[in-house]
């Protein structure tokens, strides 16, 4: 039994390693497409952590929506948009600027993680441990019906708006006709 427990822990660290490696690739990629691949690797790690947090449904949704939809949209944006140019040339140049950025992010990380380690979290007195999809669906359709409908409308409006915006961009193109 204890062996399975340690294997589960090893899987957890594997997913954390995936997140870290994906983030590293996305930040240091030479080409934008590599950055998209790093992002999808990192999102896969987050999906694994969702699995460890007790929600298989959310893990699958993360793979389906974030990796399957968002990363593909961004990849299309990379392919259709600019011609592949070295991303590294266009970064913030100068050693001083980069050191400042790293310093700001590292200090923010240290400050906030110190706050997290010191905080005393209290559990809710009564907790129901039902993580099933059935319970989730009931909550979504009874208690959270209005936000659910709202998010559907937001998605519809965003898609129509995206189509219209890209259509306008094509019509106003200067040296086209």
């Amino acid at each position, binding site marked *: 039994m204890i062996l399975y*427990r340690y294997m589960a*822990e090893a899987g*957890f*660290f594997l997913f954390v390693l995936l*997140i870290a490696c994906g*983030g590293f690739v*996305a*930040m240091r990629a030479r080409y*934008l497409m590599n*950055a998209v691949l790093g*992002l999808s690797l*990192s999102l896969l790690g*987050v999906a694994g952590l*969702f699995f460890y*947090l*007790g929600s298989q449904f*959310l893990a699958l*949704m993360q793979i389906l*929506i*974030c990796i399957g939809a968002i990363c593909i949209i*961004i990849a299309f*944006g990379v392919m*259709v*948009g*600019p011609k592949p140019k070295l*991303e590294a040339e*266009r970064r913030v140049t100068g050693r001083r600027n980069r050191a400042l*950025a*790293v310093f*700001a*992010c590292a200090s*923010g990380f240290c400050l906030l*993680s110190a706050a*997290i380690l010191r905080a005393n979290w209290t*559990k*809710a*007195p009564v*907790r*129901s441990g*039902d*993580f099933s999809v059935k*319970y*989730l669906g*009931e*909550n979504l359709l009874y208690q959270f019906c209005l936000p*659910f409908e709202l*998010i559907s409308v*937001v*998605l519809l409006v*965003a*898609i129509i*708006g*995206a*189509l219209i*915006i890209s259509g*306008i*961009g094509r019509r*106003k*193109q*200067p040296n086209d006709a």
Partner: protein
Amino acid sequence: MMPSDNLTSYLVIALFLLVLGIYGMVRHRTFIGMLISGEFILNGAALNFMAFNRFLAPNPAVGQIFTLFIMGIAAAEAAVIVSLILMVYNRYRSIDPAEVDDLKN
């Protein structure tokens, strides 16, 4: 206590995603790179919600529903931003934020 059964480890991982996103937002000099960094930040927020949902919250469905909403918002945001990037590229022939400066003067 094992790290995978501890609220603090998940919060630190989510914080790492947030800091990574902010660093990328500063570092990348293309709109698409900034969009990628924004996705990192949104996923850090989602991981935070899921961690609190697993360890502290009274109703375990609420955090999952909120995470689903974050995913939906992220998808809508990505679609709109990519179409905006295409429009900007058609007009300026560049996706460098420093070159899109018609309103500057």
